[in-house]
């Protein structure tokens, strides 16, 4: 039997997927079975949901934050940043409903109350300390090739041209 996914290798694994009251059987080769995402059925569902994005919507619309376009969303089935959810709000409303059968989150959100938040900036001192820690480990393991790479990175930091 040939693998249902790659159509090439021999299928040795029988996978069963149950979603929305549908029991789906797949014959897969070991590689394809391994490659499967955490939830292939949901994966198929989301591709379909993205497909439903109205194409008459201005195709030129671009997320100001990360530059993701509608076409890109349809192609990758992945959102670029949180701002995308605002930029393409209308389309996402339908999509969220199709995927989850609901419109609103139930439960809590982030409880972060600190100032600034986000990523902040790591001081180059701290970064250097961490690289040195890793360097030391490599030297102990006598992995000199990787140690040399780390040493270069530390030197770059010293020269202040790490960006």
């Amino acid at each position, binding site marked *: 039997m040939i693998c249902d996914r790659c159509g090439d290798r021999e299928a*040795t*694994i*029988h*996978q*069963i*997927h*149950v*979603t*929305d*009251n549908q*029991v789906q059987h797949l014959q897969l080769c*070991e590689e394809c*079975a*391994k*490659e499967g995402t*955490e*939830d292939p*059925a*949901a*994966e198929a*569902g*989301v591709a379909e949901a993205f497909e439903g994005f109205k194409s008459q919507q201005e195709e030129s619309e671009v997320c100001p934050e*990360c*530059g*993701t376009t509608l076409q890109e969303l349809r192609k*990758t*089935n*992945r*959102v*670029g*940043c*949180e701002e995308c*959810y605002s930029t393409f709000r209308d389309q*996402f409303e339908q*999509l*969220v409903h199709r*995927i*989850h*059968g*609901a*419109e*609103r*989150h*139930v*439960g809590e*959100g*982030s*409880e*972060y109350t*600190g100032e600034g*938040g*986000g*990523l*902040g*900036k*790591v001081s180059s001192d*701290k970064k250097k300390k*961490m690289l040195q820690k*890793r360097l030391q480990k490599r030297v102990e*393991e006598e992995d000199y090739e990787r140690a040399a790479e780390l040493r270069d990175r530390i030197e770059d930091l010293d020269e202040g041209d790490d960006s």
Partner: protein
Amino acid sequence: MNLPIDLKQAPAWMNRTGSDRDVVVSSRLRFARNIAGVSFPRKAETDVKGRILDRVTEALDEWDLDGTFHFVAIEDLEDLEKEVIQERRLGSPELTGEPMGGLVFDGDESRGLLINEEDHFRIQALQSGYALPEVREDAEELESALDREFGFASDDEWGYLTACPTNLGTGMRGSVLLHVPGLILRDEISRVLKAVANLGLTVRGYYGEGSESQGFYLQLSNQVTLGRSVENLLESLSRVTERIIDKERDARRKLFDGNSVDVEDQVYRSFGVLNQARSVGASEALKCLSLVRLGADAGFFDRIGLAEIDRLTMTVQPAHLNLSIGERLSSKDRDAYRARVLRKRFNADETPNSGSSEPIETERSDD
């Protein structure tokens, strides 16, 4: 060797007994989270992803979490180590394929953090047996610590914002890995699954037809993540799990009731392969271990515990074998080595219980 774990041994979390271990191999829960104001990994600059790694390692030093956490940068790993990480369910192919990926895990590998995978953070917890409340608690502790540190992207309407809209809302995926040879051998599995399918759960399984079976495992997880609370999602999952546990136990009783020579034969043949064969492929090993697991639960073997079988199921996977030898073996050599590892275990201190199998009444065939 760059990984701070002993790869010949199965992860320590697998040693715990866990409840309902006869049917539930393990429980797992993960949260998908992203840092507010930072593009998701696919769109983030390398420099930004590097900063996330740095900030997490810094924070780990400062947090006062129970246990020791290790940090591993994906770029520091050998290919074989990356594969082992996947086999141990610590990381995904997507993570190990990300040069700026990072992995944090504790000593018994029950708690983990995947950094710069599809989302900035995938926080996960694993335990043996049925342990959804425990894995939830473990994952939430790490989740709160990260939220205090970074502040997660979230939205009043759609909850936590994630790279894939299938994870919006709670960002939570709870799952249980079930061993259901009874339901599969008795051909009841489709019926049982149909009954649970409209309860918002996804089932993935690996099995073949009849004797070609691949191990009789099913993974049950919540399908949606938005519109229902974490409690509510886990409640459905655990309710269905309980039902399947009951049905599976029932099926096993019927399986060994009356004329069970076929099943017993399969179990003891599998034991024979594990304890005598000179070459065992990965799927054959999985299948035989699974059938011996069924037999061990039914009391056929004195000294083989379920935990031990589950550990072997993990450690005889290809990358584990390669890494414990220290080189990439040809599949022929690997199958021979796997057979040696299995023989060593099953020969050493186990012979089937001579009294476990009742005399077979060959004339009674109407059952």
